[in-house]
Protein backbone atom coordinates (compact mmCIF):
# COMPACT_ATOMS: atom_id res chain seq x y z
CA UNK A 1 0.00 0.00 0.00
CA UNK A 2 2.85 2.33 0.72
CA UNK A 3 4.54 1.52 -2.56
CA UNK A 4 4.36 4.11 -5.28
CA UNK A 5 3.97 2.97 -8.81
CA UNK A 6 6.54 4.54 -11.06
CA UNK A 7 5.14 5.92 -14.24
CA UNK A 8 6.34 4.19 -17.33
CA UNK A 9 8.36 6.92 -19.07
CA UNK A 10 6.97 5.79 -22.40
CA UNK A 11 3.40 6.15 -21.24
CA UNK A 12 1.24 8.72 -22.90
CA UNK A 13 0.37 10.14 -19.48
CA UNK A 14 3.86 11.52 -18.86
CA UNK A 15 3.08 14.37 -21.20
CA UNK A 16 4.95 15.99 -24.05
CA UNK A 17 3.30 13.76 -26.64
CA UNK A 18 0.45 14.61 -28.92
CA UNK A 19 -2.04 11.75 -29.31
CA UNK A 20 -2.30 12.68 -32.96
CA UNK A 21 1.39 12.71 -33.69
CA UNK A 22 1.49 16.35 -34.77
CA UNK A 23 2.19 19.59 -32.99
CA UNK A 24 -0.53 21.72 -31.43
CA UNK A 25 -0.35 24.32 -34.19
CA UNK A 26 -0.80 21.83 -37.00
CA UNK A 27 -3.64 20.03 -35.23
CA UNK A 28 -5.48 23.29 -34.65
CA UNK A 29 -5.03 24.26 -38.29
CA UNK A 30 -6.69 20.97 -39.27
CA UNK A 31 -9.55 21.61 -36.83
CA UNK A 32 -9.99 25.14 -38.17
CA UNK A 33 -10.10 23.81 -41.73
CA UNK A 34 -12.76 21.31 -40.67
CA UNK A 35 -14.89 24.14 -39.28
CA UNK A 36 -14.37 26.16 -42.46
CA UNK A 37 -15.46 23.12 -44.46
CA UNK A 38 -18.73 23.20 -42.50
CA UNK A 39 -19.25 26.85 -43.44
CA UNK A 40 -18.65 26.26 -47.13
CA UNK A 41 -20.83 23.14 -47.06
CA UNK A 42 -23.72 25.16 -45.66
CA UNK A 43 -23.26 27.76 -48.41
CA UNK A 44 -23.30 25.09 -51.10
CA UNK A 45 -26.40 23.48 -49.59
CA UNK A 46 -28.05 26.93 -49.69
CA UNK A 47 -27.14 27.12 -53.35
CA UNK A 48 -28.62 23.69 -54.01
CA UNK A 49 -31.84 24.41 -52.17
CA UNK A 50 -32.30 27.81 -53.84
CA UNK A 51 -31.74 26.29 -57.22
CA UNK A 52 -34.24 23.50 -56.61
CA UNK A 53 -36.73 25.98 -55.16
CA UNK A 54 -36.62 28.13 -58.28
CA UNK A 55 -37.70 25.16 -60.39
CA UNK A 56 -41.34 26.16 -60.43
CA UNK A 57 -40.97 29.91 -60.74
CA UNK A 58 -41.38 31.93 -63.92
CA UNK A 59 -37.84 33.21 -64.14
CA UNK A 60 -35.70 30.14 -64.84
CA UNK A 61 -32.30 29.45 -63.31
CA UNK A 62 -29.84 29.99 -66.16
CA UNK A 63 -27.39 27.42 -67.52
CA UNK A 64 -23.90 28.38 -66.33
CA UNK A 65 -22.32 27.77 -69.70
CA UNK A 66 -24.59 30.44 -71.18
CA UNK A 67 -23.61 33.01 -68.60
CA UNK A 68 -19.90 32.34 -68.14
CA UNK A 69 -18.76 32.25 -71.72
CA UNK A 70 -16.29 35.12 -71.94
CA UNK A 71 -12.51 35.17 -72.13
CA UNK A 72 -10.43 38.30 -71.74
CA UNK A 73 -9.16 39.54 -75.05
CA UNK A 74 -11.05 37.08 -77.27
CA UNK A 75 -14.26 38.37 -78.83
CA UNK A 76 -16.67 36.88 -81.28
CA UNK A 77 -15.32 33.33 -81.19
CA UNK A 78 -18.03 30.68 -80.72
CA UNK A 79 -17.07 27.23 -79.53
CA UNK A 80 -20.38 25.40 -79.79
CA UNK A 81 -22.62 27.04 -82.29
CA UNK A 82 -23.64 30.66 -82.85
CA UNK A 83 -23.69 32.92 -79.85
CA UNK A 84 -22.25 30.36 -77.47
CA UNK A 85 -18.97 32.17 -76.86
CA UNK A 86 -16.22 30.28 -75.04
CA UNK A 87 -18.12 28.57 -72.23
CA UNK A 88 -16.15 27.74 -69.09
CA UNK A 89 -12.77 28.34 -70.73
CA UNK A 90 -11.80 31.13 -68.37
CA UNK A 91 -12.90 29.28 -65.26
CA UNK A 92 -10.88 26.24 -66.34
CA UNK A 93 -7.85 28.54 -66.59
CA UNK A 94 -8.54 29.74 -63.04
CA UNK A 95 -8.79 26.14 -61.84
CA UNK A 96 -5.43 25.25 -63.38
CA UNK A 97 -3.82 28.35 -61.89
CA UNK A 98 -5.00 27.36 -58.43
CA UNK A 99 -4.01 23.70 -58.79
CA UNK A 100 -0.58 24.77 -60.03
CA UNK A 101 -0.14 27.14 -57.08
CA UNK A 102 -1.04 24.19 -54.82
CA UNK A 103 1.73 22.18 -56.48
CA UNK A 104 4.29 24.94 -55.90
CA UNK A 105 3.10 25.10 -52.29
CA UNK A 106 3.75 21.36 -51.77
CA UNK A 107 7.15 21.80 -53.41
CA UNK A 108 7.86 24.57 -50.89
CA UNK A 109 6.92 22.22 -48.04
CA UNK A 110 9.14 19.51 -49.51
CA UNK A 111 12.04 21.97 -49.76
CA UNK A 112 11.35 22.97 -46.15
CA UNK A 113 11.71 19.37 -45.04
CA UNK A 114 15.20 19.45 -46.62
CA UNK A 115 15.81 22.80 -44.86
CA UNK A 116 16.72 24.31 -48.20
CA UNK A 117 15.91 27.98 -47.65
CA UNK A 118 16.38 29.22 -51.20
CA UNK A 119 14.11 26.57 -52.69
CA UNK A 120 11.44 27.30 -50.09
CA UNK A 121 11.59 31.00 -50.91
CA UNK A 122 11.41 30.33 -54.66
CA UNK A 123 8.36 28.06 -54.44
CA UNK A 124 6.58 30.30 -51.92
CA UNK A 125 7.09 33.19 -54.33
CA UNK A 126 5.52 31.18 -57.17
CA UNK A 127 2.59 30.28 -54.91
CA UNK A 128 2.01 33.95 -54.08
CA UNK A 129 2.08 34.85 -57.78
CA UNK A 130 -0.44 32.07 -58.48
CA UNK A 131 -2.73 33.39 -55.75
CA UNK A 132 -2.58 36.95 -57.07
CA UNK A 133 -3.22 35.67 -60.60
CA UNK A 134 -6.30 33.80 -59.40
CA UNK A 135 -7.64 36.87 -57.61
CA UNK A 136 -7.11 39.00 -60.72
CA UNK A 137 -9.00 36.46 -62.82
CA UNK A 138 -11.82 36.39 -60.31
CA UNK A 139 -11.99 40.20 -60.33
CA UNK A 140 -12.27 40.16 -64.12
CA UNK A 141 -14.99 37.49 -63.94
CA UNK A 142 -16.97 39.60 -61.45
CA UNK A 143 -16.63 42.69 -63.61
CA UNK A 144 -17.94 40.80 -66.65
CA UNK A 145 -20.80 39.41 -64.59
CA UNK A 146 -21.78 42.78 -63.12
CA UNK A 147 -21.61 44.61 -66.46
CA UNK A 148 -23.87 42.12 -68.16
CA UNK A 149 -24.49 41.69 -71.83
CA UNK A 150 -25.62 43.95 -74.61
CA UNK A 151 -29.03 42.33 -74.94
CA UNK A 152 -29.94 42.45 -71.24
CA UNK A 153 -32.35 40.08 -69.58
CA UNK A 154 -34.62 37.68 -71.42
CA UNK A 155 -37.42 38.46 -68.99
CA UNK A 156 -39.05 41.67 -67.82
CA UNK A 157 -39.25 43.00 -64.29
CA UNK A 158 -42.00 45.58 -63.81
CA UNK A 159 -42.21 45.77 -67.57
CA UNK A 160 -38.54 46.65 -68.04
CA UNK A 161 -35.46 44.75 -69.11
CA UNK A 162 -32.59 44.40 -66.63
CA UNK A 163 -28.98 44.98 -67.59
CA UNK A 164 -26.07 43.69 -65.55
CA UNK A 165 -26.16 42.24 -62.07
CA UNK A 166 -26.09 43.24 -58.43
CA UNK A 167 -27.18 41.67 -55.16
CA UNK A 168 -30.86 42.45 -55.81
CA UNK A 169 -31.51 41.94 -59.50
CA UNK A 170 -29.65 40.39 -62.37
CA UNK A 171 -30.25 39.88 -66.06
CA UNK A 172 -29.45 36.16 -66.04
CA UNK A 173 -32.20 34.73 -63.85
CA UNK A 174 -33.62 34.79 -60.33
CA UNK A 175 -32.12 37.21 -57.82
CA UNK A 176 -30.64 34.30 -55.88
CA UNK A 177 -28.47 33.36 -58.88
CA UNK A 178 -26.34 36.51 -58.69
CA UNK A 179 -26.64 36.81 -54.92
CA UNK A 180 -25.26 33.32 -54.36
CA UNK A 181 -22.59 33.78 -57.03
CA UNK A 182 -21.27 36.89 -55.27
CA UNK A 183 -21.52 35.48 -51.75
CA UNK A 184 -19.94 32.08 -52.44
CA UNK A 185 -17.22 33.09 -54.90
CA UNK A 186 -16.64 36.21 -52.83
CA UNK A 187 -16.24 34.23 -49.61
CA UNK A 188 -13.87 31.87 -51.40
CA UNK A 189 -11.99 34.82 -52.92
CA UNK A 190 -11.68 36.28 -49.43
CA UNK A 191 -10.05 33.03 -48.34
CA UNK A 192 -7.65 33.23 -51.29
CA UNK A 193 -6.81 36.81 -50.34
CA UNK A 194 -6.12 35.95 -46.72
CA UNK A 195 -4.09 32.97 -47.92
CA UNK A 196 -1.98 35.25 -50.11
CA UNK A 197 -1.46 37.63 -47.17
CA UNK A 198 -0.39 34.74 -44.91
CA UNK A 199 1.91 33.41 -47.63
CA UNK A 200 3.56 36.83 -47.99
CA UNK A 201 4.16 37.03 -44.25
CA UNK A 202 5.67 33.53 -44.18
CA UNK A 203 7.71 34.31 -47.32
CA UNK A 204 9.25 37.33 -45.62
CA UNK A 205 10.03 35.16 -42.60
CA UNK A 206 11.68 32.54 -44.82
CA UNK A 207 13.91 35.17 -46.40
CA UNK A 208 14.79 36.56 -42.98
CA UNK A 209 15.90 33.11 -41.86
CA UNK A 210 13.38 32.81 -39.01
CA UNK A 211 12.79 29.13 -39.70
CA UNK A 212 16.46 28.32 -39.99
CA UNK A 213 16.87 29.80 -36.50
CA UNK A 214 13.86 27.86 -35.27
CA UNK A 215 15.27 24.64 -36.66
CA UNK A 216 12.26 23.51 -38.63
CA UNK A 217 10.01 24.68 -41.45
CA UNK A 218 6.77 23.49 -39.93
CA UNK A 219 5.14 26.88 -40.48
CA UNK A 220 5.34 26.25 -44.22
CA UNK A 221 3.37 23.04 -43.72
CA UNK A 222 0.71 24.81 -41.66
CA UNK A 223 0.22 27.61 -44.12
CA UNK A 224 0.33 25.00 -46.88
CA UNK A 225 -2.61 23.19 -45.29
CA UNK A 226 -4.63 26.41 -45.49
CA UNK A 227 -3.68 26.97 -49.11
CA UNK A 228 -4.62 23.42 -50.13
CA UNK A 229 -7.94 23.82 -48.37
CA UNK A 230 -8.59 26.93 -50.48
CA UNK A 231 -7.83 24.90 -53.60
CA UNK A 232 -10.08 22.07 -52.45
CA UNK A 233 -13.00 24.43 -51.84
CA UNK A 234 -12.50 25.91 -55.28
CA UNK A 235 -12.79 22.41 -56.81
CA UNK A 236 -16.25 22.09 -55.27
CA UNK A 237 -17.38 25.69 -55.87
CA UNK A 238 -16.39 25.35 -59.51
CA UNK A 239 -18.19 21.99 -59.77
CA UNK A 240 -21.44 23.31 -58.26
CA UNK A 241 -21.55 26.75 -59.85
CA UNK A 242 -20.21 26.05 -63.30
CA UNK A 243 -20.69 22.36 -64.07
CA UNK A 244 -23.90 21.27 -62.35
Amino acid sequence: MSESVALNPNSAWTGGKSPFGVSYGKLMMWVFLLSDAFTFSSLLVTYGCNRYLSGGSEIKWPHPDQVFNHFPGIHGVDMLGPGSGLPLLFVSLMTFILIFSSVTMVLAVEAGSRKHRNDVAFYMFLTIIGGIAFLSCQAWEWTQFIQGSHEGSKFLVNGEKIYGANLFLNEYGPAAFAGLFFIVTGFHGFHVLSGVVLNVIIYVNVIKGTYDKRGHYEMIEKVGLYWHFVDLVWVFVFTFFYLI
Partner: protein
Amino acid sequence: MEHTDNTEHTEHHEGHGISKKAIWRTFGILSFLTVVDFAIFFNMDGTMSRNMIFVALGIIKSYYIVGIFMHMNYEVKRLAGIILLPFGFILGLIAALLYEGDRWSVIKWFVE
Protein backbone atom coordinates in the same frame (compact mmCIF):
# COMPACT_ATOMS: atom_id res chain seq x y z
CA MET B 1 7.05 28.68 -23.95
CA GLU B 2 10.06 26.43 -23.53
CA HIS B 3 7.86 23.35 -23.24
CA THR B 4 5.78 24.26 -26.28
CA ASP B 5 8.90 24.71 -28.36
CA ASN B 6 10.18 21.34 -27.21
CA THR B 7 6.91 19.65 -28.06
CA GLU B 8 6.82 21.24 -31.51
CA HIS B 9 10.33 20.15 -32.19
CA THR B 10 9.90 16.56 -31.05
CA GLU B 11 6.58 16.18 -32.84
CA HIS B 12 7.91 17.46 -36.12
CA HIS B 13 8.64 14.64 -38.50
CA GLU B 14 11.39 15.22 -41.01
CA GLY B 15 9.66 15.24 -44.39
CA HIS B 16 8.23 11.75 -44.45
CA GLY B 17 8.49 10.41 -47.87
CA ILE B 18 6.82 12.83 -50.28
CA SER B 19 9.08 13.00 -53.29
CA LYS B 20 9.04 15.58 -56.06
CA LYS B 21 8.05 12.80 -58.43
CA ALA B 22 4.95 12.01 -56.38
CA ILE B 23 4.03 15.70 -56.30
CA TRP B 24 4.20 16.15 -60.07
CA ARG B 25 2.44 12.84 -60.62
CA THR B 26 -0.43 14.04 -58.43
CA PHE B 27 -0.53 17.32 -60.37
CA GLY B 28 -0.88 15.26 -63.54
CA ILE B 29 -3.71 13.22 -62.03
CA LEU B 30 -5.59 16.33 -60.84
CA SER B 31 -5.20 18.05 -64.22
CA PHE B 32 -6.37 14.91 -66.01
CA LEU B 33 -9.45 14.64 -63.76
CA THR B 34 -10.28 18.30 -64.46
CA VAL B 35 -10.03 17.68 -68.20
CA VAL B 36 -12.36 14.68 -67.73
CA ASP B 37 -14.76 17.05 -65.92
CA PHE B 38 -14.91 19.28 -68.95
CA ALA B 39 -15.14 16.41 -71.41
CA ILE B 40 -18.15 15.03 -69.57
CA PHE B 41 -19.71 18.50 -69.32
CA PHE B 42 -19.63 19.06 -73.06
CA ASN B 43 -20.47 15.52 -74.13
CA MET B 44 -23.23 14.48 -71.77
CA ASP B 45 -26.72 15.90 -71.23
CA GLY B 46 -27.54 17.64 -67.99
CA THR B 47 -29.07 14.88 -65.90
CA MET B 48 -28.84 13.86 -62.27
CA SER B 49 -26.42 11.05 -63.22
CA ARG B 50 -24.09 13.60 -64.78
CA ASN B 51 -24.25 15.63 -61.55
CA MET B 52 -23.42 12.51 -59.56
CA ILE B 53 -20.40 11.89 -61.82
CA PHE B 54 -19.19 15.44 -61.18
CA VAL B 55 -19.55 14.99 -57.41
CA ALA B 56 -17.74 11.64 -57.60
CA LEU B 57 -14.87 13.22 -59.57
CA GLY B 58 -14.72 15.98 -56.96
CA ILE B 59 -14.42 13.39 -54.20
CA ILE B 60 -11.60 11.59 -56.06
CA LYS B 61 -9.78 14.91 -56.45
CA SER B 62 -10.30 15.55 -52.73
CA TYR B 63 -8.64 12.24 -51.96
CA TYR B 64 -5.52 13.35 -53.81
CA ILE B 65 -5.48 16.90 -52.43
CA VAL B 66 -6.15 15.92 -48.80
CA GLY B 67 -4.18 12.66 -48.90
CA ILE B 68 -1.05 13.74 -50.72
CA PHE B 69 -0.82 17.53 -50.87
CA MET B 70 -2.08 17.95 -47.31
CA HIS B 71 -0.10 14.90 -46.20
CA MET B 72 -3.03 13.09 -44.61
CA ASN B 73 -1.98 9.70 -46.04
CA TYR B 74 1.22 9.89 -44.02
CA GLU B 75 -0.34 11.01 -40.75
CA VAL B 76 -1.46 8.95 -37.77
CA LYS B 77 -4.80 7.26 -38.54
CA ARG B 78 -6.38 8.94 -35.52
CA LEU B 79 -5.80 12.39 -37.04
CA ALA B 80 -7.35 11.30 -40.32
CA GLY B 81 -10.33 9.97 -38.38
CA ILE B 82 -10.88 13.09 -36.35
CA ILE B 83 -11.06 15.20 -39.49
CA LEU B 84 -12.76 12.88 -41.94
CA LEU B 85 -15.38 11.26 -39.70
CA PRO B 86 -17.18 14.53 -38.82
CA PHE B 87 -17.00 15.51 -42.45
CA GLY B 88 -18.60 12.18 -43.33
CA PHE B 89 -21.54 13.20 -41.16
CA ILE B 90 -21.67 16.56 -42.93
CA LEU B 91 -21.82 14.79 -46.30
CA GLY B 92 -24.83 12.84 -45.06
CA LEU B 93 -26.38 16.09 -43.89
CA ILE B 94 -25.76 17.70 -47.29
CA ALA B 95 -27.46 14.81 -49.07
CA ALA B 96 -30.43 15.02 -46.71
CA LEU B 97 -30.76 18.80 -47.09
CA LEU B 98 -30.57 18.67 -50.87
CA TYR B 99 -33.26 16.00 -50.89
CA GLU B 100 -35.35 18.25 -48.63
CA GLY B 101 -34.76 21.14 -51.01
CA ASP B 102 -36.21 19.09 -53.80
CA ARG B 103 -39.27 18.31 -51.67
CA TRP B 104 -39.67 21.97 -50.71
CA SER B 105 -39.94 22.95 -54.34
CA VAL B 106 -42.85 20.56 -54.70
CA ILE B 107 -44.53 21.90 -51.57
CA LYS B 108 -43.91 25.49 -52.67
CA TRP B 109 -45.62 24.85 -56.00
CA PHE B 110 -48.46 23.08 -54.26
CA VAL B 111 -48.99 25.93 -51.78
CA GLU B 112 -48.83 28.56 -54.48
